């Protein structure tokens, strides 16, 4: 394994995979507790249109997906506010449109189906140096934004009304969270693919929430599960010659199942009055 790690493509895969895993896990805890877990699923479908557009126009697919996902994230917020729709309805509208546009572009171009498959199912081992640079910079920016706004995000997630009364600008933070999620989804689709990226947001967070006694603990446990799943999943992929994305998601689920059983074994339940 140590000899394999001397290869540049593996170093790139592990470095960017770990950073993306941490960004997904940290954001995932906020999203799951806000009952916004499906936003990741919706934005990944929207990003599919961006990837197809990038391939169609022959520009960096990751960049095109980022632009489309950011635009859609803001459009979802506006549609929620102005049309009075629930969040999942707005997400449902845009995610369906994203998939439809992606399929249309793929059918029109015909020539890039293999590349599109790499984005649908993930191909972290084929990540390019330019994509690594973009990934590291964006994942670091996501984590820095969460760190800077950690207290306000926590307050808003726990008790939105009290946070507003304390002067927290919850509308701005909602938009920030959507933008950060869009960026993280686009980064994550290189690791596990468009079809599975929501798993990297939801499952480590769900596992962390099973075992944590504090919010900080939940974030740390979620990040640990995500990093373990990505690194072990990559190792399994190399050892068994199976797709890395599937191995990563299966390991995420194994960690969740383990944490669930651990909690059940300890009989942790909230008290009744």
């Amino acid at each position, binding site marked *: 394994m140590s000899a394999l790690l001397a290869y540049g493509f593996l170093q790139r895969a592990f470095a960017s995979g770990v950073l993306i895993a941490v960004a997904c896990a940290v954001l995932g805890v906020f999203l799951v507790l806000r009952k916004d877990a499906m936003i990741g699923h919706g934005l990944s479908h929207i990003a599919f249109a961006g990837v197809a557009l990038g391939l169609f126009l022959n520009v960096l697919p990751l960049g095109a997906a980022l632009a489309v996902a950011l635009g859609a994230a803001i459009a979802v917020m506006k549609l929620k506010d102005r049309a009075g729709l629930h969040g999942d309805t707005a997400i449902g509208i845009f995610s369906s449109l994203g998939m439809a546009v992606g399929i249309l572009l793929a059918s029109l171009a015909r020539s890039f189906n293999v590349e599109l498959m790499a984005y649908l199912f993930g191909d972290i081992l084929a990540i390019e140096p330019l994509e690594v640079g973009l990934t590291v910079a964006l994942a670091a920016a996501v984590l820095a934004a969460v760190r800077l706004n950690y207290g*306000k995000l926590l307050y808003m997630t726990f008790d939105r009304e009290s946070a507003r009364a304390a002067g927290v600008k919850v509308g701005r933070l909602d938009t920030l969270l959507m933008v950060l999620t869009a960026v993280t989804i686009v980064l994550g689709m290189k690791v596990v693919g468009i079809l599975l990226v929501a798993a990297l947001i939801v499952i480590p967070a769900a596992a962390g929430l099973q075992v944590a*006694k*504090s*919010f900080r603990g939940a974030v740390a446990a979620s990040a640990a599960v995500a990093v373990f799943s990505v690194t072990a999943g990559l190792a399994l992929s190399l050892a068994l010659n199976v797709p890395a994305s599937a191995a990563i998601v299966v390991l995420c689920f194994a960690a969740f199942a383990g944490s669930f059983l651990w909690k059940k074994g300890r009989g942790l339940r909230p008290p009744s*009055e």
Partner: protein
Amino acid sequence: MDLIVLRGVSFRYDGTPVLVDIDLTIREGDFLAIIGPNGSGKTTMVKVILGLLPPSAGEVRLFGRTPAEFTDWGKIGYVPQKATHVDPFFPASVEEVVGMALMAGPRPGSPSGRDARARVREVLEHVGMGGSARTPIGRLSGGQQQRVFIARALVTSPRVLFLDEPTTGVDADNQASFYEILDRLNRDEGLTIVLITHDIGIVNKHVTSVACLNQRLSYHGSHAEFCRSDVFRDMVTRGDHLIAHEH
């Protein structure tokens, strides 16, 4: 000193009047009860005061400023109506819940790091929850959670504390000790307290002034005068507010 002033404040929701032409002044050191039946606009009035809802007409002044101009929100503590309806699986420790108020925004003189942790421990001791700092909030009883939310409202050293139906879902023993804490804060530390309630028994025992609301303010004055007023007599005759409310 006048901390909060409402002049001619009205609020309409989808065209329906909820508050009509409210004039109210909250002075430093008051322990004010805002009472009224369900749907009388009590919670709405507090939300208008806190800038959570914009008034349809009239003016609100917080420490001399409008809610839009006001930035020193640490001067106002707030415990909302459903504070104790906590998601039992939310993984926040008691000290994290209290510390949230310190992290809501950079404020002049606001403690951070080790000082913030010390301040959190200090207010938790103050409300008798010092031994539960690391306990997940979802594992506490309703009464214990209510003390934690009081601590969160106090951690920024506010000048005025708003509590909206604070003892809903809290048993009688815990209610008594809860009001003892409020009495101490008001009497010994001079904290101004605004309590929304429909439990007239509480009003009789603890507060110094009363405001009766049913879209309009029908009475605002001292507790002693309130007990002699026609408003009070009518309420007792009707039995409107004598039964503890269960949500």
